[in-house]
C-alpha cells in the first residue's frame, strides 16, 4: 500500500528531483508511514510552486528588458481579450441567462395567425376564454396589451406608459410587489381603476411615500387607486413585441370594456405549459382547437389559428443570431491575435534557439523550456486580459450603452462573475494557443542544424513555414470578418435607403396622445378638440402643412380592418383587409405624398358631409382591381365609437410604406372629422425652422389646447428611420469595427513576417545585387512571395466567409449573402493591404549593400 502511495506522491515532485532521488527514497520505503508519504507529497508541491515562482521572476526580468515587445503583445492581447469579454457579457445577459421569472422555461407566448391578413393579428378576450376552456396543455394564460394613462399630480399631467394585464399575469411570472398587493379579478371589474406602479414611478412621482397604498389618485381624469408598488428594476414582458423592460405601471385589463367582441383583437398573451407537455404537443393541440373554432365561428375565425412559441424566443426576437455573429467575430479576432503573438514569440525565442538546443543536448527536457515559454506567454496574456477588461468596461459604458439599448435586457449587461470566469478561461486558452507556435518550431530544430546555421542568419525553413502558415490563418480569418461586416454594412445602407414614399426631411411628427374619455365622451367633443388643435398647429410660424392622424409611416401603429367593395360578392370569410387610418386635411401635403387621381381630404369633409375615403395605389390595384376607383364605394369598419358604413372613394394617393421591412400594403384614409379617434398624433411640415424649434412649438400647441394631456414627444422622420435601423446599424458598426481591428492585426502580422524574412535573406539579396540584379527584380521577388502567401490566405478565407455569410443570411436585408460586389471588393482590398504592408521591408531589401552582406561570408 505504502509502495503505491509513495509512487503517487513522487509524481507530485518536479521531474528532476524525482529522477535523481526517487530511487533513494524508494530504498527506505520499508520503514515509512503515511505521514512520510504526506511529507513527500507536500514537499513535492512546494518545490513545484518554488519552481513556478522562479520561472515567473525569471520571465518578468526578461520581459522588463523588452518593453516595446511587451507593449505590442499586451495590446494585441488586450484587443482580442477585451472584445471577447465585452461581447461575452452581452451574450451571457441577453441570450444565455434564463428570463427572470418563475420556471421561465415553461413560459410561452400565444401567437395568432390569420391567412387573410399581412401583419400578425392579436387576440380578443373571447379568444383567451376559448383557449382557457379548450386547451389542457396551457395551464395558465394571461392577456396583455400596452397601455398608457395620464396621471394628474398637483395639477400637472404626467404621461405614464405601462401594460394592461389580466390578473393572472402576476402569478404566471411570479411577480410579487414590494409594497401592497398584486392585481386580482376584482380589479378587472368595470369602474374599478386600480394600479400597481413601478418602484421608479413611486420614487419619482410619489416621493417613495409608503402611505400611497389605497389612496385616491386621478388617472385619466377618473379617480383610481394605487394598490401596490413593484420591486425595484422589475422587468415586465410584453409578448406583443417581445419587449422586456421596466414599465411605469401595471393596470387591470377591463373585463367588459372594450366590448367582449370576438373580432376585437387587440391583446397578446403569455401562458404556462403543463410540465409534461412539449411545445410540439401544445401546438398540435392548438391546431385542433383552432380547427374547431373555425367551424364554430366562421364569421370571425374561418382563417384564424393559434400557436405558441417559447417566451424566450419571443423576447430574443432577432437578437440571438446577431449576438452570436458578433461573438463568432470576436473569437476570430482572438485567433488572429494568438497567431500574431505566436509569430512574435517565435521570432523572439528563435534568438535563443542555440541556447535551448544546447541545453537539451545536455539533458534539459523540452518540458522545462516549454514551461518557461508558457509562463512568459501567460504573464503577457494576463496583462492583456487586465487591460482588455478595462477596455471592455469602457466600451460597454461608452458606445455600448447606445448599442445595448437595441437588445432585450441590454440595460442589465455588466461585467459580472461569469464574465470574469470567462476571461480567466480565455487567458488559459490564449496562452496555450500563442505558445504553441514557438514551441513547435523549437522542437522542429535540432542542435546539429542549429549549430550549422549559427552566425549565418539562415532562417530554418521549418520555422519559416510555420510562420507563413500563421499569416495565412490571419489573412483567412480577417478576410472572412471583413466580408461579413461588409455584407452587414451594405444591408444597413439598403435598409436605411428604403424609399418610404414620403418627403425625406423637414417633417416633424409627434408621439401618440390619447384623449381621456371622461373629458371627451362623445365623437363631437373629440372632433371639436381636434379641429381646435389643428387650427393652432397650422397657425405656427413657418408651417406650410399640418395634420392630425392615427398612424403615419414608421409610427408602429397599423390597424387592419376587413373591407369590401360595393357591388362585389365575397364568399363568407374572404373579405379583403386593408390598413385603415384617420387623417385630417393636409396629411398628404405634410408628408409630400403625391395625389394620383381625384381630390385630397379637405376640412369640409365633416361628420355632416357625405362619407368619403381616399385610397392608395396598392388598394386601387388589388382590392379595386378592374374598376374606376373614383366611382367605387367601399365599406369602412366600425371602430373607435363609429359604426360601419359605406364611403365613396374620392382620391387615390401614391403608396407609402408603413414599416421598413414590408412593401406598401393596401391602405385607406378616412377624414378625421368623420371618425374622430381617441388617440392620434400630429404630422407637421415647416420650412426655415430647426426640428427642435418646431418640436417645441408643437408641444406648446398641445399643452395650451389640451391642458389635461401630457404633451407628446416629437421626432423627425429621420429619427424614426434611425430608431428602426438602430439594431442593424449597431451590428454593422460593431462588425465593421471588429473587422478593422482584425485587418490591422493581420497586416501587422504580414509586415512582421516579411520584415523578418528580408532580414534573414539580406545576404542572398546582397549577392544577387552584386551579381547585377536590379531593384525591380528584388522588389518583385519579395512582393511575389507575399502575394503568394496572401493568395492562399484569401482562398481559405473565401471558404470561411461563404460559410459565415450563409449563417447570417437571416439578418441581411435585400443583400445576397454571396454578394459578388462585396466579395470582390474585399479580396482586392486584402491584396492591396498585403502589398502595402510588405512594401517597406521589400524596399529595404533593394537597398542591401553587397559589401555589408558579403562581409560576414
Amino acid at each position, binding site marked *: 500500500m505504502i509502495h503505491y502511495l509513495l509512487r503517487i506522491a513522487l509524481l507530485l515532485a518536479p521531474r528532476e*528531483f524525482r529522477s535523481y532521488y526517487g530511487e*533513494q527514497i524508494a530504498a527506505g520505503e520499508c*520503514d515509512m508511514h503515511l505521514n512520510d508519504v504526506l511529507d513527500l507529497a*507536500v*514537499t513535492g508541491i512546494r518545490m513545484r510552486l518554488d519552481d513556478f515562482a522562479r520561472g515567473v521572476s525569471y520571465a518578468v526580468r526578461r520581459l522588463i528588458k523588452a518593453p516595446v515587445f511587451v507593449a505590442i503583445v499586451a495590446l494585441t492581447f488586450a484587443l482580442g481579450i477585451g472584445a471577447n469579454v465585452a461581447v461575452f457579457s452581452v451574450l451571457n445577459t441577453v441570450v444565455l441567462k434564463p428570463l427572470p421569472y418563475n420556471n421561465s422555461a415553461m413560459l410561452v407566448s400565444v401567437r395568432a395567425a390569420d391567412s387573410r391578413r399581412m401583419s400578425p393579428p392579436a387576440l380578443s378576450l373571447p379568444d383567451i376564454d376559448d383557449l382557457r376552456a379548450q386547451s389542457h396543455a396551457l395551464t395558465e394564460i394571461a392577456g396583455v396589451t400596452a397601455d398608457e394613462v395620464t396621471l394628474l399630480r398637483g395639477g400637472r399631467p404626467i404621461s405614464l406608459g405601462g401594460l394592461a394585464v389580466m390578473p393572472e399575469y402576476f402569478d404566471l411570472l411570479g411577480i410579487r410587489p414590494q409594497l401592497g398587493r398584486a392585481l386580482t379579478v376584482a380589479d378587472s371589474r368595470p369602474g374599478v381603476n386600480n394600479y400597481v406602479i413601478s418602484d421608479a414611478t413611486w420614487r419619482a412621482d410619489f416621493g417613495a411615500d409608503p402611505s400611497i397604498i389605497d389612496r385616491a389618485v386621478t388617472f385619466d381624469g377618473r379617480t383610481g387607486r394605487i394598490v401596490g408598488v413593484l420591486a425595484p428594476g422589475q422587468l415586465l414582458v410584453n409578448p406583443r413585441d417581445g419587449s422586456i423592460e421596466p414599465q411605469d405601471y401595471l393596470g387591470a385589463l377591463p373585463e367588459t370594456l372594450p366590448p367582449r367582441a370576438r373580432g376585437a383583437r387587440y391583446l397578446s398573451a403569455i401562458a404556462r405549459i403543463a410540465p409534461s407537455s412539449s411545445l410540439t404537443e401544445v401546438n398540435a393541440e392548438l391546431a385542433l382547437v383552432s380547427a374547431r373554432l373555425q367551424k364554430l365561428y366562421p364569421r370571425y375565425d374561418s382563417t384564424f389559428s393559434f400557436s405558441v412559441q417559447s417566451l424566450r424566443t419571443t423576447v430574443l426576437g432577432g437578437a440571438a443570431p446577431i449576438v452570436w455573429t458578433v461573438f463568432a467575430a470576436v473569437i476570430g479576432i482572438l485567433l488572429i491575435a494568438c497567431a500574431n503573438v505566436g509569430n512574435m514569440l517565435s521570432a523572439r525565442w528563435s534568438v535563443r534557439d542555440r541556447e535551448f538546443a544546447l541545453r537539451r543536448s545536455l539533458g534539459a527536457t523540452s518540458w522545462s523550456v516549454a514551461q518557461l515559454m508558457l509562463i512568459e506567454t501567460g504573464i503577457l496574456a494576463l496583462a492583456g486580459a487586465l487591460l482588455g477588461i478595462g477596455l471592455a468596461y469602457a466600451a460597454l459604458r461608452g458606445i455600448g450603452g447606445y448599442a445595448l439599448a437595441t437588445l432585450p435586457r441590454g440595460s442589465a449587461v455588466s461585467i459580472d462573475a461569469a464574465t470574469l470566469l470567462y476571461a480567466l478561461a480565455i487567458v488559459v486558452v490564449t496562452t496555450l494557443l500563442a505558445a504553441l507556435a514557438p514551441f513547435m518550431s523549437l522542437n522542429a530544430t535540432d542542435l546539429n542544424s542549429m549549430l550549422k546555421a549559427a552566425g549565418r542568419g539562415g532562417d530554418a525553413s521549418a520555422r519559416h513555414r510555420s510562420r507563413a502558415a500563421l499569416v495565412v490563418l490571419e489573412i483567412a480569418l480577417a478576410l472572412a470578418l471583413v466580408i461579413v461586416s461588409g455584407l452587414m454594412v451594405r444591408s444597413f445602407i439598403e435598409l436605411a435607403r428604403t424609399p418610404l414614399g414620403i418627403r425625406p426631411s423637414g417633417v416633424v411628427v409627434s408621439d401618440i396622445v390619447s384623449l381621456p374619455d371622461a373629458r371627451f365622451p362623445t365623437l363631437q367633443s373629440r372632433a371639436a378638440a381636434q379641429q381646435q388643435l389643428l387650427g393652432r398647429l397650422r397657425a405656427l410660424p413657418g408651417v406650410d402643412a399640418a395634420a392630425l392622424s392615427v398612424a403615419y409611416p414608421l409610427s408602429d401603429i397599423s390597424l387592419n380592418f376587413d373591407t369590401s367593395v360595393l357591388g362585389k360578392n365575397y364568399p363568407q370569410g374572404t373579405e379583403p383587409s386593408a390598413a385603415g387610418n384617420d387623417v385630417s386635411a393636409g396629411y398628404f401635403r405634410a408628408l409630400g405624398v403625391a395625389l394620383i387621381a381625384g381630390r385630397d381630404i379637405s376640412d369640409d369633409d365633416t361628420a355632416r358631409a357625405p362619407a368619403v375615403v381616399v385610397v392608395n395605389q396598392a388598394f386601387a390595384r388589388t382590392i379595386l382591381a378592374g374598376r374606376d376607383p373614383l366611382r367605387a364605394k367601399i365599406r369602412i369598419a366600425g371602430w373607435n365609437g363609429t359604426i360601419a358604413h359605406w364611403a365613396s372613394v374620392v382620391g387615390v394617393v401614391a403608396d407609402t410604406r408603413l414599416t421598413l421591412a414590408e412593401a406598401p400594403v393596401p391602405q385607406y384614409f378616412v377624414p378625421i372629422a368623420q371618425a374622430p379617434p381617441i388617440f392620434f398624433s400630429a404630422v407637421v411640415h415647416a420650412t426655415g425652422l430647426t426640428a427642435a424649434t418646431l418640436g417645441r412649438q408643437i408641444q406648446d400647441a398641445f399643452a395650451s389646447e389640451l391642458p389635461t394631456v401630457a404633451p407628446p414627444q416629437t421626432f423627425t422622420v429621420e429619427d424614426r428611420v434611425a430608431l428602426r435601423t438602430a439594431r442593424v446599424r449597431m451590428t454593422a458598426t460593431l462588425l465593421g469595427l471588429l473587422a478593422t481591428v482584425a485587418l490591422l492585426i493581420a497586416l501587422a502580422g504580414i509586415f512582421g513576417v516579411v520584415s523578418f524574412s528580408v532580414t534573414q535573406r539580406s545576404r542572398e539579396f546582397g549577392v544577387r545585387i552584386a551579381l547585377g540584379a536590379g531593384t525591380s527584380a528584388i522588389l518583385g521577388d519579395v512582393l511575389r512571395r507575399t502575394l503568394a502567401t496572401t493568395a492562399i490566405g484569401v482562398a481559405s478565407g473565401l471558404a470561411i466567409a461563404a460559410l459565415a455569410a450563409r449563417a447570417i443570411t437571416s439578418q441581411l436585408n435585400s443583400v445576397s449573402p454571396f454578394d459578388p460586389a462585396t466579395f470582390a471588393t474585399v479580396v482586392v482590398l486584402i491584396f492591396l493591404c498585403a502589398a502595402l504592408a510588405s512594401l517597406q521591408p521589400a524596399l529595404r531589401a533593394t537597398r542591401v549593400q553587397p559589401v555589408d552582406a558579403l562581409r560576414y561570408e
Partner: protein
Amino acid sequence: METAGDPRAFLPLSPSAFYILLALAAEERHGYSIAKEVEDATSGTVHLGPGTLYRLIKQMVTDGWIVEVDRVDSEDPRRRYYRLTPWGRRIARAEAERLADAVRTAMERRLLSASAFA
C-alpha cells in the same frame, strides 16, 4: 556556490538542516541512515520525512555544504552517500555556537541548571 565568507550569514538554520549536518559530522551516511541517526539522536522527537530530507539534501548539495561521495552500498546499490564539506562543517559549527550562546543565556537567567547536562 558560495564557500567563503562568514558562515553566520546563513544562520539560524532550520532544526532539520542542523540535525542533518550533525548526523554527517561524524561519518559519511546515505539518506536513509541520516534520517535514522537524527531520530535516534533526538530520541524520536525529530522525524525527517523523505520529502523534507531529500529536498534539504538537494539544496545542501547545490550550495556546497555537503557532497555526494563515490561509494557503493553493499546492501542496496540505490543508496548514495554524503559527506560534509569543510564549508558545511563551518556552518554547522557556527550554528552550534549560536545555540550554545543561547543555552548560556538560559542558564544565567535560571531557566536551565547545570544539572541538565549531567
